[in-house]
């Protein structure tokens, strides 16, 4: 039988520790073991992107890796975007542009947007659509999501100039 192991990692700037079997997917570890249920499970086959998180600075699907692979990693989940009650500019933009209806895909969309804007602070509409290609939404039809990403880029852009090293 496979051995259960203790896993330590940093999530949203805080140290966490929990137990997992080798076959435990990272998304299940985050939700079931650590209680961080902001990261959603949609398709669980790596198609929908609802489980997207930022792992060591890069957005990934947390259903496509084992918790063991994240030992010692730094992770950002949707819970880490807000500062207290202050929404992240990306969250504000999704709110203002109605970039969600049921909200199920939203945590993944927000983190895909976060990663996209880090690599490309002012993406074209085509680049936005490519950037969120790994995230499926079954209700808004994407038009408002694309608007929200654009609005988020504009919100973040002026702040970027003063702290250009943020990556």
């Amino acid at each position, binding site marked *: 039988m496979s*051995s259960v192991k203790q896993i330590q990692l940093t999530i949203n700037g805080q140290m966490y520790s929990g137990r997992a079997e080798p076959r435990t*997917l990272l998304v299940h570890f985050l939700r079931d073991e650590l209680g961080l249920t902001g990261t959603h499970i949609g398709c*669980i086959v790596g198609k929908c992107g609802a489980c997207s998180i930022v792992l060591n600075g890069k957005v990934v699907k947390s259903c*496509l890796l084992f918790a063991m692979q994240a030992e010692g990693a730094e992770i950002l989940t949707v819970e880490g975007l807000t500062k207290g009650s202050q929404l992240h500019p990306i969250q504000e933009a999704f709110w203002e542009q109605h970039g969600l209806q049921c909200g199920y895909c939203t945590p993944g969309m927000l983190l895909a947007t976060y990663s996209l804007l880090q690599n490309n602070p002012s993406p074209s509409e085509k680049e936005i659509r490519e950037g969120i290609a790994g*995230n499926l939404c079954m209700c808004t039809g994407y038009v408002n999501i694309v608007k929200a990403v654009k609005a988020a880029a504009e919100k973040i852009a002026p702040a970027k100039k003063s702290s250009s090293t943020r990556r």
Partner: protein
Amino acid sequence: MIPRPFEYHAPATVSEAISLLKNANDSKILAGGQSLVPLMKLRLVSPANIVDIGRIAGLRYIKRERNRLLIGSMAIHHDVATSSIINKKCKPLAEAASHIGDQQVRNRGTIGGTICYADPAADIPAVVVAMDAEFKVTGPFTERVVKARDFFQDIFTTDLRQDEILTEVRVPVLPPRSGGTYVKFERGVGDLAIVGVAAIVTLDNAGACKDVRLGLAGVGSTPIRATKAEDVLKGQKPSDALVAEAGEKAAEMSNPSSDIRGSAEYKREMVKVHVRKAIKQSLSRI
């Protein structure tokens, strides 16, 4: 959607990984896991031992050495797609990497992983076959170099032995007076290619084709080098008629099967269309 139980190993060095592969029964290498993890969740594969090579330092790099690029097997698709040296010296490879999956998949998936998985519809294998790339393969006692063309043996089947790891991909840079591209024809972003075409064209001083290389994805049990199509153009000044004939020959050499991405007949037609497109695009980039 939970895999069967297995033991997890995270070796720190290549030699440690190889000894695990040699000694642990029913073991499999985990690189980026973007194909293996789904297969394990669907229980299509259920290895008893997983050897995660993601913690081995020094397998993720891209560098130039004379007339070739050396790419560590754990370089992720995002690295390859955005590398300035690859974009400058081997555009088709960067383009192919940029078309794989979505940003999340490109942030985990590796060049070594996609090559060793050997899905015949994958993008990178068609490019490395067209480029005459070589692979450095490290085993228990020795290192060997395998040509891309000899590496892919059948669907999901390669020349790699159970106790070997592909550690480096060596890709020649495009010669002077060359242009190249990778054209992917897909149903939607993130899907595998219906047809993918890697093309590199090199002209001589008189404007005739000194060299032509064509690699096809998605239309056979391995990536296909469309040599008969290359021969149509070699030594000739490219013309619409010759480019069209090359498309016909490439379609003749392909052996697609009918599946959810289209009928065999349709895919063969698409080979003609996209080989023409890829050659013209390569010529326009010289």
